[in-house]
């Protein structure tokens, strides 16, 4: 199993390197960053010479890439503010040893992942972290780390809400359709799923923004949703309840825009997977045992039918992130995606590279999580 984890991490690293390399070379194909820097008159004197030296901008492409790559994984600051991170480290080590000793093999990866995740969350809160991702070529002064890292949370919130909506609505919908196969509801559901699946995120986003948020308020005078942003201006002054309401009114429309396509996909997939399980031999056995329809469906069918959706979700993560890039631009959501589009507009080299890799890391991690979850759900999975 160790071999499995290591292999997954190596694959992940190779993917990330390939991703960053391709994007790096693409950006270079449109001209050296130096050419663009000379055009930027916002930069202070000496900045260009400084970054040229630091990033090797006058050297061959491969050297430039190598410098960028090694800088990217180099911490500028990685210091514990107090003793808590060390304690957490100790607890995590003990916990992993205990898991190794006592947990059933197939649950080990999940336990370890959980412990590491919680530990990392607690430890990072008590640490200064900062990586050397360079200085924005556009502004000439802000740290890329600050510009990018602070925005990851916003994208995280949007992406996970969308994923949540898609799962919570899509899966039950698919199951219900499978149980009522060929009913009117099933056919309606299938048709709607096709329509949703064929509607680009930006069309949904623009339509929701224009009509549900903007024109609706003009017509009725009632402000249901906000047109843009993540929180209101007066967010800090609101009570907790009002803060939740504020978040809801900002988050709903962009999240729905992203969720709809995924939702349609999940419901189709879940329907098919449920139908397949309903036809399976072991369900026939369950019926022949004399179980009630309810038990057959809830205990025997669902448990099996939910397993394959994990794979679909792990594939879908990349699409959700892609969707976030589009919706963030539409709804002025201060996340990575919008920053990405802004940075691309001015070809801000280090910012683009930083975000590409953050997105890549997010996808790789989510895929590993999905794989481990699959192992927990399906006893047939072996890690080797």
């Amino acid at each position, binding site marked *: 199993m160790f071999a499995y984890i290591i292999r997954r991490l190596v694959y992940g690293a190779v993917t990330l390197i390939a991703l960053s390399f391709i*994007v790096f070379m693409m950006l270079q194909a449109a001209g050296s960053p130096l050419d663009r820097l000379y055009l930027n008159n916002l930069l202070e004197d000496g900045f260009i010479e400084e970054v040229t030296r630091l990033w090797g901008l006058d050297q061959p492409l491969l050297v430039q890439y190598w410098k960028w790559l090694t800088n990217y994984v180099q911490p500028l600051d990685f210091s514990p503010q107090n003793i808590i991170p060390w304690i957490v480290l100790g607890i995590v080590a003990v916990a992993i040893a205990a898991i190794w000793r006592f947990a059933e093999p197939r649950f080990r990866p999940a336990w370890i992942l959980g412990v590491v995740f919680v530990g990392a969350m607690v430890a990072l809160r008590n640490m200064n972290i900062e990586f050397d991702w360079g200085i924005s070529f556009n502004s000439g002064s802000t740290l890329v780390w600050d510009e990018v890292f602070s925005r990851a949370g916003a994208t995280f919130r949007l992406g996970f809400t969308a994923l949540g909506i898609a799962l919570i609505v899509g899966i039950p919908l698919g199951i219900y359709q499978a149980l009522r196969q060929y009913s009117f509801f099933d056919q309606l559901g299938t048709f709607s799923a096709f329509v949703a699946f064929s509607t*680009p995120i930006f069309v949904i986003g623009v339509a929701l923004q224009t009509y549900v948020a903007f*024109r609706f308020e003009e017509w009725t005078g009632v402000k249901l949703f906000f047109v843009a942003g993540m929180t209101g201006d007066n967010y800090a002054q609101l009570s907790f309840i009002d803060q939740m309401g504020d978040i809801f009114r900002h988050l709903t429309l962009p999240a729905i825009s992203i969720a709809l396509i995924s939702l349609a996909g999940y419901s189709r997939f879940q329907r098919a997977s449920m139908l397949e399980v309903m036809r399976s031999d072991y369900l026939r056995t369950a019926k022949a045992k004399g179980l009630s329809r309810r038990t057959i469906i809830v205990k025997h069918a669902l448990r099996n039918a939910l397993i394959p959706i994990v794979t679909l979700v792990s594939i879908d993560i990349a699409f959700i992130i892609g969707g976030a890039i589009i919706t963030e631009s539409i709804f002025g959501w201060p996340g990575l995606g919008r920053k990405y*589009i802004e940075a691309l507009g001015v070809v801000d080299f280090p910012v683009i590279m930083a975000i*590409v890799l953050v997105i*890549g890391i997010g996808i790789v991690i989510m895929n590993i999580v999905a794989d481990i979850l699959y192992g927990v759900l399906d006893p047939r999975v072996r890690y080797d």
Partner: protein
Amino acid sequence: MTDTRGAGERLEELDAVEGLAVEPITQWDLFWTRLRRHRLAMVAAGVLTFMVLLVVLAPLLPFEDPTQRLLDDTGRTLRNIGPRGGILFGTDELGRDVLSRVVYGGRASLIVGGVTGALVCTMGTLVGSIAGYYPGPVDQSLMRFTDLVLGLPLLPVAIVVGRILPDVEWLPSWVGDGPIGIALLLGFLSWGGLARIVRAEFLSLREKEFVEAARAAGANDRRIVFRHILPNAISPIIVQTTLIVGIAIIVEAALSFLGFGIPPPTPTWGGIVSEGGRIAVRGFWWQLVFGGTALVVTVLSINFLGDGLRDALDPTQTIERK
């Protein structure tokens, strides 16, 4: 579509025609019968045919120039005019005819869809077949490469390339600025899924008796692949390709929407929706609605057609009745 009558009732009907000679049904007949029964797929095929004809024949039809503003009698530009006789879809902010922009915008979308589809179909089938037919190092290295391509997040990478393409000096402008460049890009990013499917199909088929038999009868590799294996893998190839065509059209539109696709003033559906969204808040809805509808209807038709093809090609469908 659904026959909910009991078996007994249907039997009476059957008894009435008993004694009639039944022609043997070939695979091909079965395919056509099933496809024709999928009403949505047939409608979709009709819609797509219409779209393609419209887009191809557009220069011959009496459409306005999609890049020129319309003027009224006094020589003023007709900006943001709502739909009316003569200007069926209205005009945009610059006074251009929206109908003609939607029609010409379809060119970009359909070219991207078609070229990407062709590219994915060829590359995916080729890589998948080679990997599936030559196990060992060839298979291993091809599949590693496929994994790598599949690992690239489509949209973030596509956006970078879309942004960069027009700036790349050594590229001819028909690649850099046109739909072909986008199609090449999307094609190269999306063949991985099909390659995997085709490989899996090969792996399972190459052990099958009929392939063994052909091999024993002295058929050479090429004959085995083209006559015996590929025809059996045709169903997943077609289904996956239609899926990719739909996705390619959506991604191209998304790129144009974000401003990183085909540069203006060439009309694109993504661009039309983007501009339309900006002016729809002022009540000028037509650009958003017509542009968006054209896009959705096209992709929907492709997906319905794909669904119909899948049903018609699915061999297990003989038992399950819809």
